[in-house]
């Protein structure tokens, strides 16, 4: 009798120990995240002020200087990648949800899955081969192409997954009223799935905003304010990379500030996406 009791006690004890261990390790895995946020806020927030956001960078040795060209460059790159990926991505998403069983749809979704897994540096090389080499110079345009390719899978997936949730009755009602097929898709099905598509676009933007590797030999970076998309352009992640790996402490300070701006932007976008999905959830 006593023997059984001790064995039960032991099993219960092991059970409790295991649960404790799981909780401990799980909490342990979010420590780096908190450390990153803490370190960047601590070192970055004091750097960020209006001058920092509105001035151009200064040469080494001079105090001050800002990241206005990087912020503007990032916005340019987002705009370009948006143009390259959103219309095509939405159409491809519609295609995937409309022709689920077809052979081309299978190939398309396979391509999307592969595209999503391609390392970003490889995408950078592709944009280099496709755009930089023929045009003979680094450019914002090539950076936009690289980021557009990275954004594409996110948008296609989001669109396709959202539209698949929309019930057939909606489409049938529209068709039964005599509305043409193209119009049914564009005016009934797409608006019904708008929130899902929108959150996909926001996620895509959040994903490419922080990308550095594809820009190293496409957008390349530039210390000047540039509005010409055929010339090299700066971006926030590139600035962080260049400043962080430099040997000058003043530049490290600037890198902390730029990191703070970047992380606020990216995590803010993530939060907005969550709110969008929560508020206008596609439900039928």
């Amino acid at each position, binding site marked *: 009798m006593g023997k059984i009791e001790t064995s039960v006690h032991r099993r219960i004890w092991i059970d409790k120990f295991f649960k404790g261990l799981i909780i401990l*390790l799980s909490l342990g895995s979010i420590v780096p995240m908190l450390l990153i946020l803490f370190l960047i806020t601590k070192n970055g927030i004091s750097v960020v002020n209006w001058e920092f956001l509105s001035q151009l960078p200064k040469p080494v040795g001079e105090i001050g200087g800002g990241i206005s060209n990087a912020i503007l460059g990032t916005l340019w790159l987002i705009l370009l990648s948006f143009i390259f990926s959103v219309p095509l991505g939405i159409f491809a998403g*519609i295609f995937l949800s409309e*022709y689920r069983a077809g052979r081309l749809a299978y190939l398309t979704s396979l391509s999307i899955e592969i595209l999503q897994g391609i*390392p*970003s540096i*490889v995408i950078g*090389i592709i944009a280099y081969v496709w755009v930089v080499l023929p045009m003979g110079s680094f450019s914002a345009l090539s950076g936009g192409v690289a980021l557009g390719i990275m954004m594409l899978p996110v948008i296609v997936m989001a669109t396709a997954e959202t539209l698949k949730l929309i019930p057939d009755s909606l489409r049938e009602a529209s068709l039964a009223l005599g509305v043409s097929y193209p119009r049914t898709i564009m005016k009934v099905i797409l608006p019904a799935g708008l929130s899902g598509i929108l959150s996909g676009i926001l996620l895509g933007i959040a994903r490419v905003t*922080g990308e550095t590797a594809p820009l190293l*030999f496409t957008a390349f970076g530039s210390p000047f304010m540039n509005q010409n998309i055929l010339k090299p352009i700066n971006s926030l992640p590139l600035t962080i990379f260049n400043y962080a790996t430099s040997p000058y402490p003043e530049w490290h300070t600037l890198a902390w500030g730029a990191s703070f701006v970047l992380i606020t932007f990216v995590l803010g976008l993530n939060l907005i996406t969550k709110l969008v999905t929560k508020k206008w959830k596609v439900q039928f």
Partner: protein
Amino acid sequence: MNHTIADTAVHASRAKITMQYKWGISEALFRRLLYFAGLILVVLLAAIFFSLAIASFPALRQFGFSFLIGKTWDPVRGEFGAFAFLVGTLMSSFMALLISTVFSLPVSIFLGEYFRHGNVSTFMKSVIELLAGIPSVIYGFWGLFLLVPLVRALETKLGVAPQGVGIFTSSLVLAVMIIPYASSIGTEVISLVPSDLKEAALSLGATRFEVIRKIVLPYAYSGIFAGILLALGRALGETMAVTMVIGNSNFLPKSIFSPGNTMASIIANEFTEATGSLYLASLIELALVLFIVTTIINISGKLIIRKMSTGK
């Protein structure tokens, strides 16, 4: 009176005409447009592959298979062997996988079994999601300023040359970065385990731990493995964070603490400085290898998951 009726009729027919004009693209044309969009993506992928293959052709022809086993990388003498980077990539990725699994598996069990709903679960899930959203350059920056001094201190204690940067440091950063990928898939497959199986074991007197060890983990095993595989795909191709902390040395790493380079980091470091077509082609061949390896890993991971979630 008659006049106005006629007017209205004209107006209506005009409206009809404009409507037809606006949405008059026929169904066939619209369908073709959709088809075309789907086709573009397939063409895009094929074009990526062939562009890489064509651009790396000079190196493929010059070195053949020995590119992957050649030990010297000497741009000045035009000798390009990628063995050191292959080793660097595999060492850093597998070490990262080892470290991250110690954390990602518990997170999966935490979210998939112990805390499936409620505030704790929501909080944890949001934090993990945010972790996945942090840009890799920021991970690198963080690693450079927080982990490098720590590793240097550790190396001093162990009596290794205290450099701070190196393969071990990059594995640490990578490990943190891939926790979200492995754990989110793990969580999904663990919560797929049918509750009647678990309840049957519980009703026979098994403890929660025994249920997890003997029912949940064996059932979810292949899915967890797939999650780890997909995380490996991420780690192999990760560039910025690794480039910033690996130390950038083109020699074969002697230990886990020595500086090295991965295939991705050597591209990031040398691509803009590459002079000569053979040099450029060699770097692009590295990208081709990365592309093929990550594609194989991703597809097999996804196949395993699909097989699991649709039932055996």
